[in-house]
């Protein structure tokens, strides 16, 4: 193997780590908002991602049959659609179920798990048990080859860009917008926030729906790397929780750092050992660190 081959592999491996980082972060983001800011353990997070993925599939089917010429451009619009669908579902779920359970965090866990099972069966009954993949626009597939032997996956670049966009969007919204101000006030001290005239119930509903909407965007992005079936969500939920817990529940910055750490550990160790062993190593490291820091990597100091 020549030096340039090794350079290429090194570059591609570096990018593999980055794209896994993007995937983990996108998965964890919506969950981090809901879990971190509201204390609700949303077990149906994976299913909201599946809603997003199915939205893409739906959009692809509709475009294919009604306006085939539009195929190269439908994807960005479909992502917006995925956000809207997941957002609306989240809004409804919060209104029907979650708002009655805020004082009982363990019950939200059970209730959202029920929502997750229900949604899975709805997908299975109305969309079908088989896994589907939407037809992706040509420009999203294949690889970018700057020179011979170096292939950078285009879908990876796309997910990376989308993650950067969504994450910075959320951070800006949290720290610069009225909604962000209300959310932060509610997290810091709910009673006090109420007393200053913030409608915490409305804030909660919007926060939950936004978290779900972001899950929808994550699901939409994953159609470029995997398939979508009724139970796809359950594949992602464990990783998503891992990222959020490891990062420290109430800290978005922690989520970013933890996604980066987990992704790099996983991706580098996968290169040098077998896939299953790499997973064992990553998980053991996480357990070890969590034993020493039960609050996660970054805990926000708030007086409760």
């Amino acid at each position: 193997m020549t030096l340039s081959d090794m350079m290429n592999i090194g570059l591609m491996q570096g990018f593999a780590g980055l794209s896994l980082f993007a995937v983990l972060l996108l998965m964890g983001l919506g969950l981090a908002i809901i879990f971190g800011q509201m204390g609700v353990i949303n077990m149906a997070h994976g299913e909201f991602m599946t809603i997003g993925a199915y939205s893409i599939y739906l959009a692809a089917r509709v475009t294919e049959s009604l306006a085939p010429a539009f195929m190269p451009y439908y994807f960005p619009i479909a992502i917006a659609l995925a956000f809207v669908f997941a957002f609306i579902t989240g809004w409804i779920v919060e209104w029907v179920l979650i708002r009655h359970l805020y004082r009982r965090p363990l019950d939200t866990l059970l209730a959202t798990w029920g929502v997750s099972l229900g949604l899975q069966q709805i997908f299975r009954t109305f969309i079908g048990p088989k896994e589907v993949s939407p037809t992706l626009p040509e420009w999203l597939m294949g690889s970018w080859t700057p020179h011979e032997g170096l292939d950078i996956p285009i879908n990876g670049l796309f997910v990376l860009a989308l993650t950067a966009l969504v994450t910075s969007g959320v951070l800006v919204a949290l720290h610069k917008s009225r909604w962000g101000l209300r959310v932060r006030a509610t997290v810091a001290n709910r009673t006090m926030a109420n007393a200053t005239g913030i409608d915490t119930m409305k804030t909660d509903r919007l926060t939950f729906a936004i978290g779900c909407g972001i899950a929808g965007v994550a699901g939409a992005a994953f159609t470029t790397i995997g398939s979508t079936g009724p139970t796809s969500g359950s594949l992602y939920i464990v990783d998503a929780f891992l990222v959020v817990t490891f990062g420290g529940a109430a800290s978005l910055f922690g989520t970013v750092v933890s996604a980066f750490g987990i992704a790099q550990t996983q991706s580098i160790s996968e290169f040098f050992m077998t896939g299953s062993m790499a997973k064992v190593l990553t998980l053991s490291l996480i357990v070890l660190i969590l034993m020493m820091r039960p609050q996660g990597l970054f805990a926000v100091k708030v007086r409760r």
Partner: protein
Amino acid sequence: MSRDSDPSSLDALALRRRRLLQGAAALPVMGLSGLSFGQGQFPTAKVNTTKLAVTDTEVTVGQLHSSTGTMAISETGSIQAEQLAIDQINAMGGVLGRKIKVIKEDGASDWPTFAEKSKKLLVNDHCAAVFGCWTSASRKAVLPVFEKENGLLYYPTFYEGLEQSKNVIYTGQEATQQIIWGLDWGAKEKKAKTFFLVGSDYIWPRTSMKIARKHIENFQKGSVKGEEYYPLGHTNFNSLINKIKVAKPDCIFAAVVGGSNVAFYKQLKAAGITGDKQFLLTLAVTEDEMTGVGGENFAGFYSSMKYFQSLDNENNKKFVAAFKAKYGKDAVIGDVTQAGYLGPWLWKAAVEKAGSFDVDKVVAGSPGIELKTAPEGYVKLDANHHLWSKARIGQGQLDGTFKVVAESAELIKPDPFPKGYQ
């Protein structure tokens, strides 16, 4: 308990039924079924001495698959194919003059549930035979029940072998039938000397890869450049793909299953590993998986199976037409679906050969049963309860179908306990 696909109108229903009947009528006679069996010749007291659910006009069988849960994706095809076979047999007059009645149970992708439901089918319902199970785990869960209650199970999935039971008939391939001929074909046609083995991390891929490695190293004198397993549901293969790029194998030999499958092929394509540059042979992509993977991601890669929907023979054309008439024109038929379809026909032939529904007599009559009308072509049942069948290689096409590019000249003998491969 017959289940029609949702017809939009009564006319459509009638049309489908008619098509189905035409399909059934067009089927050539199987075994002895051309003879007419009246109850006079086969009185219930004589054909059923073990208190099975057999009346003068009806015989009850069970169907045990997952119609809910994670395995529903895969098992739906088997459920449909078995039902189609039973409908066709009933349209021809049934078995020993008796119509087949089906009791459907849902294993719900949960292995203890499979065991419980199989007990119900055998002990409460006295089913003469059961068509079902898909994963090896579910088969292992029901096996003790079938052996204790002396039931009869027709199992459709290609699997890892290393099993043989009096109470099970295996209509899919055991591991050596699927692997060895395929590897030899790769060595001969594609000049493959070095291999990279990739699988999902559970019993079937691990056993299959063990056999593959022995064959490559001991019989082909080739070398294995890497062997990797990833957890079920794993969706990130970028590091693996880089390892493959470092190893530069002649052949990627894959047994990645389920949702991972889709991620695997999408990422291979995204990393520039495509069918025109790299030889890849898999044991786990059928037409069913193709709907998820997408033809554009698999085009040019090869799959080793005994059946492909595109097989060009008269039996298969009729089977595909009947299947689409019943389940819609977009329905696809994978390897296991076809194997599921064989179950009821093999059972019918064995019952008619034995002249009895009693499990012991049907089992005794089973070895040597031949099916000339199987969609995959002529098959016969070995004394070890597995099928002799041909091995085939299909090449994935852009439209999601397979083109059959090679086929073994002879039927391959099933060998569930291969010597030199343990």
